[in-house]
């Protein structure tokens, strides 16, 4: 039985006790899968599993607070579920986690580039098949094959969690580990290599494109303030609505600070950005700092308390006192 069929079987079994099960379905074109909310047995067959399941369905969980729901997750998505559980934003008894091994998802922008190189437009994609390590896209009647490794999302190339860290129903064989230890992060390495003025110029250049649509925030599974986001408040008035790079960058800094030690690096903020601004780097930088300082990684242990969500007189790695 395929992973998809096994998932469907398990979801059908559990569905009577659940408000809904969140997963993916075929989207508006062959290249895109979109979120699916399974409320009845008929919906189950719409479920998709594979390299086009780019969304992180954990983002919807807090809005179901108080109701019992299921969620289908990739390994990376499961970390967001765990982090939400750690922060008690969702209740373990009210969430059923379905999962299977993940071989990586595509980065649509990379697919688009490959198609463009072959003289094709992604808008004309008719059919997409993923066969093991190869993605084949048919557009305007012409099939273009590309290795998954070349069009996979950056996070997949460094993936440490191809299998869910927490699942109630894990089907099929676990996916193999991409590599033993994460490779150096190219985005951070590039930023590290810049001087401070260069880095500032980098961010001013990119943030200038920002249209303040807040797609980055809305796609973020850890952004739970929603209607009360500080970006749109006058009391307190941290940001104005002024269309300046300073205000735009300030929002990204606020967002990154709010995610320090919480971000599971699912990359949804950057994927959702319509202006292709590399906003994930800010969060990755803070996560690296948190990891160095607290030896902590978000969303891997339900019992762990995130380091910035607790008060400790003395941190293990911050020696303020001699005794």
């Amino acid at each position, binding site marked *: 039985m395929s992973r998809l069929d096994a998932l469907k079987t398990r979801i059908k079994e559990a569905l009577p006790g659940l408000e809904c099960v969140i997963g993916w379905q075929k989207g508006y074109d062959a290249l895109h899968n979109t979120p699916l909310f399974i409320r009845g047995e008929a919906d189950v067959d719409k479920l998709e599993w594979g390299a086009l399941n780019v969304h992180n369905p954990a983002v919807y969980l807090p809005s179901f607070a108080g109701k019992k729901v299921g969620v289908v997750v990739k390994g990376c998505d499961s970390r967001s579920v765990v982090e939400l559980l750690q922060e*008690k934003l969702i209740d373990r008894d009210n969430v059923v986690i379905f999962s299977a091994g993940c071989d990586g998802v595509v980065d649509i922008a990379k697919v688009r580039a490959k198609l463009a190189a072959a003289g094709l437009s992604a808008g004309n994609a008719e059919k997409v098949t993923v066969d093991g390590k190869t993605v084949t896209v048919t557009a305007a009647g012409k099939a273009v094959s590309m290795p998954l490794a070349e069009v996979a999302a950056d996070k997949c190339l460094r993936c440490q969690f191809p299998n869910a860290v927490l699942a109630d129903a894990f089907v099929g064989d676990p996916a193999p580990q991409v590599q033993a230890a994460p490779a150096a992060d190219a985005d951070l390495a590039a930023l590290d290599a810049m001087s401070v003025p260069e880095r500032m110029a980098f961010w001013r250049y990119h943030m200038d494109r920002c249209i303040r649509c807040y797609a980055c925030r809305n796609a973020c599974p850890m952004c739970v303030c929603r209607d*009360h986001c500080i970006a749109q408040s006058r009391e307190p008035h941290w940001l104005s609505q002024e269309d300046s790079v300073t205000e735009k960058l300030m929002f990204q800094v606020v967002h990154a600070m709010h995610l320090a030690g919480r971000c599971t690096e699912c990359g949804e903020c950057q994927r959702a950005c319509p202006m292709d601004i590399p906003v994930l780097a800010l969060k990755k930088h803070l996560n690296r700092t948190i990891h160095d300082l607290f030896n902590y990684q978000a969303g891997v242990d339900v019992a762990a308390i995130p380091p910035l969500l607790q008060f400790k007189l003395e941190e293990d790695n911050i020696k303020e006192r001699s005794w």
Partner: protein
Amino acid sequence: MRIGVFVCHCGSNIEGTVDTATVAKASLDFPEVVYATDTMYACSEPGQDGIIQAIKDKNLTGVVVASCTPRMHEPTFRRAVERAGLNRFMFEMANIREHVSWIGRDREANTNKSVDLVRIAVEKLRRDAPLIPSKFSVNKRVMVIGGGVAGIQAALDCADGGLEVVLVERESSIGGKMAKLDKTFPTVDCSSCILGPKMVDVAQHPNITLHAYSEVDSIGGYVGNFQVQVKKRATYVDWELCTGCGACMEKCPSKKNPDAFNEKIGPCTSINIPFPQAIPKKAVIDPTTCRQFVKGKCGVCAKVCPTGAIKYDMTDEIVTEDVGAIVAATGYDLFDISKVTEYGGGRYPDVITGLQYERLLSASGPTGGHIKRPSDGKEPKNIVFIQCVGSRDKSLDRPYCSGFCCMYTAKQTILTKDHIPDSQSYVFYMDIRSPGKMYDEFTRRAMEEYGARYIRGRVAMVYPKGDKMIVRGADTLAGTQVEIEADLVVLAAGAEAAKGAPQLAEKLRISYDKYGFFMESHPKLKPVETNTAGVYLAGSCQGPKDIPQSVGQGSAAAAKVLALFSKDMLESDPQISRVDIKRCVGCGKCIMTCPFKAIKEVEFRGQKKAEVIETVCQGCGICTSTCPQGAIQLSHFTDNQILAEVNALCQS
């Protein structure tokens, strides 16, 4: 809003390097400032009257005073604006003395910076809201932590003042370091003869509850309503039944344990009463040496105890004491002399501390008051005293003077001559510090009448030769090397913070310095207060002190407690966090990070919300920086106020 700005000269303290008239004139350009002037001493009576008059004449609704640190005079000016009919929180202070005039000489730059600081204060004041403190009742019981002479004095004075007192002592008897001393300077009267009656008073005072052999486990609450968990350590002896007869000590077969009360220069039994005048005079079993505990069989004390008080299965017990104020009087410990390896302390038995020497001098000590050196029990003839061991020594991270060592060393030379008339004492010293009443006369008497030879210089090394200790050092006045064959070397070990003092300070939420001594609220004007309301200091826990100073501080702390308790109701500080229930998403991050457990989760129309417990909140602001949507704000220090201050500085 109608704002008045008052720029203080502070005599020449500020005016010397700041053009206050220009600062006042510039302030008139700031929004909503309708009046500005410079004033000679804003805190003086005419200065305060000027502020009050201006509030009335100009219909001011808010006041900025640009002067010194708010640590000193913010309460003064708040009272002044309140006298003029304003809410006391419609006031801001700009610190142009510590932050400006005292740290820079450039008059023009200082004036410009002062203008900036006033602008910041005005912008904050424009966003101030009147705050009304709420009132709460006071539990008029006081806890004194530490039963040395300072704590005893504080406990007795509070109890005599009619307060219920809980005295917590870590050892099995009160008395502290003073109980270990033989005689006291400068009168050379017997230490236990003057301390003993006070200890008995503690035991007999109807208002004092004594928890000996106990430690403070945790402290919750706030001024007027502290809850202190006291851990009563297991003594394995039922003190209700123990009569202190000492039969158990006579029969205890484990007799060779180092006696902590005798500074480990004598042995004691595993079941022990530390000294004859102990209060309470009750036995305690040391389970680390007791055969019943170590080998699982013995039971001799249980057999001989006439009242059946021995309870081998006793466990630690936690009792909760509700008190309204706490006096910390935890004293000091001695510097570890083995850290000065060149003197051989800890390696050679005949190199001892001054406190060990006290025990040798004391009639209740291990030698019955005869000076016998630890190695072979011989009476020493040549005794060398070395001062400042672990004091005034930067290389040991002990740069401070321990204060009392010069005096007790002089006393010990006098006592030595009394005990052994044909002895000779030598004292290596850096300076002689004897500024107290009758103190300098006392040290001179040691030299002139008792023949102690004072040698100004440091000792380089002490090493054994035969049964002697060779002390080699410099005589800097004669400019020569000296070498003395000593029978006994006494090191005047410096005082350091009591073990566990920083940990206790954090439980008390008071500050401590890098050496672990507790910080007073003001080094001159608030020597026994701390920056935590309701917590006071007495004795050496604040810094090394001799007996008269410690007793004085004990009484001073008691006076502060009695003054605090003279009111039935106290006002809570309204500068605390408040939750905007509309913005709160109930994520609970504030609850997780609050160090004081001052935020609780509540249900509001079926939704989770955070709520601040007013009296518990200390206004630290951690929750406000944690809350991602800014729903929790610290009154008087809101995000918008801080942003306005930053904008005032950066956009000017």
